[in-house]
């Protein structure tokens, strides 16, 4: 997959992994991995980007005698997921054009 496209997809996938409940790094990787390739080294920068953009917040919680960071989806993050879902139709149109399902002169 194109690297820029993959980066965008990974961000939305990470947000989606936080939609139902707050989660932590390793669990996010386990939840997202069946659908898209993600490594432990790439998750941290993604989380940092999402936090900087205001899509997630971070809380440090005591867990079995150590500290664990939990990530929480914000309202902005939820809206970002909605935007991705809305944009999907546009992506499908582009896909149909590229695969030839829709020709240049065809009317929708």
């Amino acid at each position, binding site marked *: 997959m194109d690297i820029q496209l993959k*980066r965008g997809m990974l961000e939305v996938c990470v947000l989606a992994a936080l939609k139902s409940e707050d989660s932590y790094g390793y669990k996010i990787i386990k939840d997202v991995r069946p659908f898209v390739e993600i*490594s432990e080294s790439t998750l941290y920068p993604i989380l940092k980007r999402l936090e900087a953009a205001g899509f997630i917040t971070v809380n440090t919680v005591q867990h079995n005698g150590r500290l664990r960071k939990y990530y929480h989806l914000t309202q902005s993050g939820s809206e970002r997921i909605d935007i991705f879902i809305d944009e999907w139709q546009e992506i499908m149109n582009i896909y149909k054009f590229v695969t030839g399902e829709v020709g240049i002169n065809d009317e929708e």
Partner: protein
Amino acid sequence: MTKNEFLKEVGKRFKSLDKNDRQKGIDYCCEIIDDMTEDGLSEEEAVASLGGADKFAESFLSELAQSKSDSVQVTPFKRRKFGAWEIVLLVLGSPLWLSLILAAAAILMSVYITIWSVVLSFAVTDLALALSGVAAIGYAIVCMVLLGGVNRMIFLIGAGLVLIGVSIFMYYFCKWLSIAAVKLSKGIFIKLKNSLKGKGLDR
């Protein structure tokens, strides 16, 4: 490799990060390994699954750098428009700020000229040595042919060879000096550009 060994190796490779980012990166690695071991993997298996300190750090730093680059693009620099009074004040104050700018430019120019005049003087000396060596050998041949002085000829050939030899050594020194001068000039220019960028004066 144990967790602590892995964290130590990764910490070394995170040296390009500032202290805060470096610690956060190490804490993240530590947390991931702890979560993996809690999930049933041994410490060695957890560390091995991360692909080695080199590969992990390379990917981590590369993605982090890309994130920083993306965030810079997301917030474009906004050009400020000057109001009427600001323009009037700029014009009235021009004798002061213009002369300060010219003085700063003159100082910068003199720094560059100083750096390069040192390099040039060494280069000229090197050329002079080489030419003197060649001239000495030439004169030695003239001495032999016209004056028949063998001793003088041998001395002059010897001196000429020494001068040429010294000029060859000096050539490599001049080369190194000019590379250093280019790096220094470039460094001064970049430092100045960055400091002006920080003050928003690079329009």
